Structure formats: C-alpha cells, structure tokens
C-alpha cells in the first residue's frame, strides 16, 4: 500500500495552505501545554457526561470517545465542492426512495436489479404507495467521506436511517473554543452551532398539513441504554423538544399523543432514533418494547411525519451503494460530484471470482453490516481469518461486497510519542426540509488512533476531532 495522503503535509512533504496557521501555532506551543489541554478536554467530556455505550462490553457500559485536540482543517474551496456533491447525492437518494415506493422507473429501466430491492430485508412493502410530505424520505443523512488524495472526495457509505454523531460535532467545537481561544483567534472558522436550529426548521417544515402552524416535534429514543442516548437528550435539549420513549406515546384514532402531566398532547413530527424494525410492534417486530403500537397506521393516515421515513434502509444498503453513481445519473442527468469506492458485488460470479483471488488485498463487508463489525481487512488479516471469510463468501456470496483497501488520508494526531499521522474519515450531516437542503460547514471527523489502523468506528477504538472549514 502506498503512503497515505497527509492533509497537513502534502505528498511532497510541503505544508498545505489550510494548515499553515495551525502548524505555526504547533511550533510555538510546548508539548506540555498541549498535553495539559488534552487532559482538560478529557475531564470536560467526562463531567458533561458525553459517553457512549459499547454493546456486549459489560466492563465499560459507558465510555468516552477519545477526543483528539488537533483539529482537522478543510479549505473553503474544498468545502464548496464537497457541499455541492453532498446535496446532489442526497437529492438522488430521496428521488430513488420515492421511485422505489411508487412507480419504480429505475427498475423498469434496469439500472438497478429487481431482486436487490424485493429480496432485501430492509425494503418495506408497507411503504408502497405511501405519501410522505414533500417527498422527503431522508431528512437527516450522514454521508461518510474519505480522501486518498487532494483531488477527490469519496463516499464510503451513505447513512440514511438514523445517523448519529452530530452531538460530537457540536460538543467538540464547544470544547475546542473553550480550550484553544488563541488558536481560534488566528483562524476564520465557519460556525456549526446553528445546526439544531436548522434541524428543527427542517423537521417542522415536513409536518402533516393538518398540523397547526407551530407543529409539535418530539425525539423518539430507544432509551437510556442505547449507545447514542446522550446524543438524543443533547439534541432534544438544543431543539427544545421532548425526548420520548415508546411508552410515552399512545395512538388514538390514528393520531399520536404523548402522555404529559396535563394529559395527552398531540405529536405531529417524530424525529425517531429507533430503527424501523422496532418502531411499531403491530407492524414490525412484535417483541419490540421500544415502539409504539399503532404508529404505522397513524403514519399511513398521514397524521404524523416520521423523520427519517420508514424504509430508507433500501437506499443506504451496501449492495445498493455500488449503484449510486448510476442512480445519480438516472435521476439528475448529472455526473456524480462525489466518487464511489470501486466495489465488487460478490453476488455476481465474475466479481466473486476476482474477490476470492484477491482476499489478502481487499476489504470485504457484510451487505447489511455496520459499525465496523463483521468485516475483513485483507492486508491486516491472518491467514486463518482470510480462509474463514473465504468459506463464508462461498456459502453466501450475495451477503458481501468487496472494495480495495483505501489508503485513507491522515491528519496529525496526539499520540504517546507526540504528534503522528493517523487515518481519518468525515461524516457531514445533510438536512432536507420541504424547501431546501442544508449542511452546516463541518461534520464529525473520526480518527483511527492506533498506528496504521484504518478502522475509525468509535466501537472499535476510534476517536474524534473537531472539523474546521476555513471561511476564506
């Protein structure tokens, strides 16, 4: 694998313009001062209670996501391109979903094969012909972006269900501004704090027509034990809305109400952070205690808006992902601005043969997996792991896709041995309301803290950084 592109010190070792001021500051600042502020940051995070839970890890039910104090910086020009590309991508995702659950032109045109949709467990037949306000399905998207060089932004994954992480984007910035006022004074950094306002505006704009001019929005959480629970309360607080659990809601005559100390109060828009499977035990998993019985029938009656819509999983599925460039072209007649990672679909015999021959070079992912679980990173895997994967692939090829191992770009990061380059990705958050799509300039940068590691997931030892977009 070639040396990775470093975002501060470019290919020839030259300092890239966006990092000039930071580099100067780092040279002036003694390592002890940096270390001191790093510890301060950790203390602040723990005090505020920003933790996440790792499933299956009883020892550390609540952990801190490590925070790296060295910011990741993008120039204004880079952001302009990225922003345009993200808007294009999310427009296509929404049009694709509308089409899949209505006319299915894209299937008739044979751009995407039928069986990928109809045999997919995340396809929701309940949504066939269902109207959603303003045809918006994905109100909140988290698009994972990586870079391998200075030229392109590449989409690694589209998250169109219940993407999380935006609270870290906001809190990271707060903490950086508290700890490094001097550094902020030397840059012009686009603010991110307007995100909650923009989110609330987007959510209200898609309320059912029957709702009042001041629609009631609530955030539906699976509860305290969910790994993103902190984020749910954080956002609800910033939005000034209630954070509700399934048991707080009740459906009567196809209308949704929350139980309050003053009786029942109608809810118009539900920003739900509960997966489709658990949202209504009458329609989906009957054993779900997290959901609201009857919610889907209120949804079908058009009396409540769910954000994101039910059935969006069909758009961010890893098997569908490989068709995204074609999907963009089909609906918009434009060339995709953001690149896709080259993807081999193991369901196709030719691709499978290639993958089986090159397992030690490729990353193999489960089509329905997420969180960095259940994937094979060929170059880092042992012989035995590779062979085990080979068997799995042969048994169930349609369950997997493969991609080349990308040399993700790196950013300088605090390590035990001082600053060193570590691999990063970026998750910007794209909001779509009735009239427009907006993206706050920034996003969540995740960093693989272990030397050489490419896995940035917080559940697998990744950390986060503040992401700066320079306002030039």
């Amino acid at each position: 694998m070639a040396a990775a592109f470093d975002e501060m010190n470019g290919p020839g070792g030259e300092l890239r313009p966006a990092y000039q001021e930071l580099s100067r500051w780092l040279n002036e600042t003694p390592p002890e001062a940096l270390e001191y502020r790093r510890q301060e940051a950790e203390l602040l995070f723990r005090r505020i209670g920003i933790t996440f839970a790792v499933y299956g890890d009883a020892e550390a039910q609540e952990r801190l996501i490590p925070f790296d104090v060295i910011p990741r910086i993008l120039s204004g020009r880079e952001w302009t391109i990225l922003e345009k590309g993200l808007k294009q991508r999310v427009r296509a995702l929404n049009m694709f979903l509308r089409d899949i659950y209505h006319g299915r032109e894209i299937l008739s045109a044979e751009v995407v094969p039928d069986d990928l949709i109809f045999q997919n467990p995340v396809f929701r037949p309940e949504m066939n012909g269902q109207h959603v306000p303003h045809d918006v399905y994905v109100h909140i998207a988290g698009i994972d972006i990586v870079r391998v060089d200075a030229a392109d932004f590449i989409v690694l994954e589209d998250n169109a269900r219940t993407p999380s992480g935006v609270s870290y984007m906001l809190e990271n910035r707060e903490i950086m501004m508290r700890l490094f006022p001097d550094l902020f004074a030397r840059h012009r950094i686009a603010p991110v704090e307007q995100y909650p306002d923009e989110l609330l505006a987007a959510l209200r704009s898609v309320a059912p027509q029957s709702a009042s001019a001041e629609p009631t929005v609530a955030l539906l959480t699976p509860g305290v034990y969910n790994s993103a629970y902190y984020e749910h309360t954080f956002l609800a607080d910033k939005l000034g809305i209630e954070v509700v659990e399934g048991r707080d809601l009740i459906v009567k005559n196809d209308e949704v109400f929350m139980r309050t100390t003053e009786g029942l109060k109608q809810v118009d828009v539900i920003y739900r952070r509960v997966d489709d499977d658990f949202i209504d035990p009458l329609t989906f998993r009957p054993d779900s205690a997290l959901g609201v019985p009857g919610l889907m029938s209120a949804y079908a009656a058009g009396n409540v808006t769910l954000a994101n819509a039910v059935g969006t999983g069909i758009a961010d599925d890893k098997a569908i992902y490989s068709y995204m460039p074609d999907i963009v072209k089909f609906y918009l007649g434009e060339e995709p601005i953001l690149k896709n990672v080259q993807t081999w679909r193991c369901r196709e015999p030719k691709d499978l043969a290639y993958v089986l021959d090159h397992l030690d070079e490729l990353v193999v992912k489960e089509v329905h997996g997420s969180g960095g679980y259940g994937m094979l990173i060929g170059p880092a895997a042992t012989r035995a792991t590779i062979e085990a994967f080979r068997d799995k692939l042969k048994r169930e090829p349609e369950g997997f896709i493969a991609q080349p191992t990308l040399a993700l770009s790196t950013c300088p990061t605090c390590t035990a041995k001082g600053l060193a380059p570590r691999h990063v990705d970026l998750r910007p958050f794209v909001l779509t309301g009735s009239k427009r799509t907006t993206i706050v300039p920034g996003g969540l940068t995740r960093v693989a803290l272990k030397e050489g590691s490419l896995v940035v997931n917080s559940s697998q030892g990744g950390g986060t950084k503040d992401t700066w977009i320079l306002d030039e």
Partner: protein
Amino acid sequence: MLSRTAENLYWLARYVERAEYLARTIDATLRVTALPAAYIGKTNEWDSALLTAGAAASFYEHYQEANEHNVIEYLSFSPTNPSSIRNCIEAARLNARSVRTALTSEMWDTINGAWIELQEVWSKGTLSRDDLAKFLRFVQETSLRFDGSAYRTMLRNDAYWFSRMGVHLERADNTARILDVKYHVLLPEEEHVGGPLDFYQWSSILRSVSALTAYHWVYRETLKPWLIADLLILNDALPRSLASCYGNLVRNLDQIGVAYGRQGPAQRHARGIRNRLEHSNMNDIFQHGVHEFIQEFIADNFRLGEIITKQYLI
C-alpha cells in the same frame, strides 16, 4: 411536561434524600454505639438502624446478625438492598440520565460527579473507619449540593415542583420512620421505663434528622422527650418536621394545580393531612398513642405518593 419526566424528577429527588437520610442514620448509630455499654442500655442500635431504614426484613434474608459490619455493609454498599446508599445513588443517576434535559447542568454535575466518585468507593470493598466517615460525609454533601443547585438554578415551574415534592414526601417518610422505631423512648416521663440512659438515644434521634442544634434554639431546654416529639412532628420551623414537609407538599401541589388550572385528589389528600397536623397538639397525640399516630401518618403519606403517581406520573 412528559409524565415520565415528572416521574424521573420526583424519584431522583427521593433517592438523593433517602441516601442522605441513610448516611445520617449510620452516622448517628456509630456515635451511639461508640459509647460505653453502660450509657446505651441493652437495645441493639444496629437493629433499630435497620428498622428506621425499613430494611430489617430483607436484611435477615442475607445476614444472620445485625452487627456494625453487616448493617453498614447492607445499608451503604449492598447491591442486593434496593435502598442501599449505593443503589440510591445508582438509581438517582439513572433517573437523572433519563431526564438530562429537564435538569440544570449544576444538578447533573452534582449527581454525575458523585456517581463517578463513588464508583471508586464501591470497588474498594470494606472501608476503614476514616474512609467510612469520609464516605458518609460525602453522601450528605452530595445531597446538600443537589438540593442547593436545584434551589438556585431551576426554573420555578412544574419540573421544580415535582422534584421538591419528591424531597418532601421522602423526608416526611424518613422522619416518621425514625419516630416509629424510637417512639418508646419519647413517651412522657411517667410512662416510660428507662432513665438517664435515654439522653443518648434522644440526641441520636435529633442527630439523624440534623436537628440537635435546632432543638436547643427552639426550646432553650435540656433534652425532653415530649419536646423532641413536638419538634419533629408539629414544629413548622424545623425543615424535617412532618408539619413542615406537609406545608411544603401542599404548597407545591397548589402551584402545580394553579399552573395546570386543575385540582385533583392529590391536592385534597395533602391538605387533609396538613390540616390534621395543624389541629393536633402533643397532649392529644400522646393521649391517643404516639405509635398509632405515627403509623397512621406513614400510611397516609404512602397513600399520597400513590395518588400523585396516578394523577400525574403515569
């Protein structure tokens, strides 16, 4: 507000108050048991600590003997005792986490900070006397900080009133329980069999409700059992007296009633209890039996909790 939010706030406050009360009870019991045997008589003080904590029955499912080590362990650290200080703090934090948005950051900081700090204490196993004293003080300080931050930082709306109701209902229960267990040492002189030994019992009762100094300020007298009973039951000026708790409960319920524009059984039941306290005097209470009076109060107080739950919290 969401019923569940109100419920969490109410229980959060109750758990913090209960943790403080347990810490005070253990503290007071340690003081009494440190006296030479001749001063405290034959009663097992650790047994009565269990009784005042309402934990006697479950205790004997796990232990043979109510001695210092066992009782402190059970009341302070035991994960199996649902009302141990440890479980109170755990439950308080869980409730706080569920209603993060309804708490001010100062309140959250107090509970979360205490929880983090106490994780270390739990992992230590048996504490030395020094560490135990530190721990008990820390629990009491946490409650004071929590109370203080609620008082100083919360908006005066239903969230605040539900939280205060939790405090006062729990407090009334605790004061009544200690009276229930110790009533026999509070009977007027001619009736009870004891003697000068009781002095230490009396001061111990006052200590567990942090009212020893208050007693002297109010009565300017040596410790007299009927005055102690008067202070803890009827004296409006003492924050932990039954009368004061009910003055506050009625006020909080009224505030909620006004804000919501609706009264209910909770308001009426609370007023009923307060009126009975207002129209009582110690002579009548002794005449009819302190024990009966207290037991009736405990049942009434419990009933108010049920009514509040039904009216607002579910």
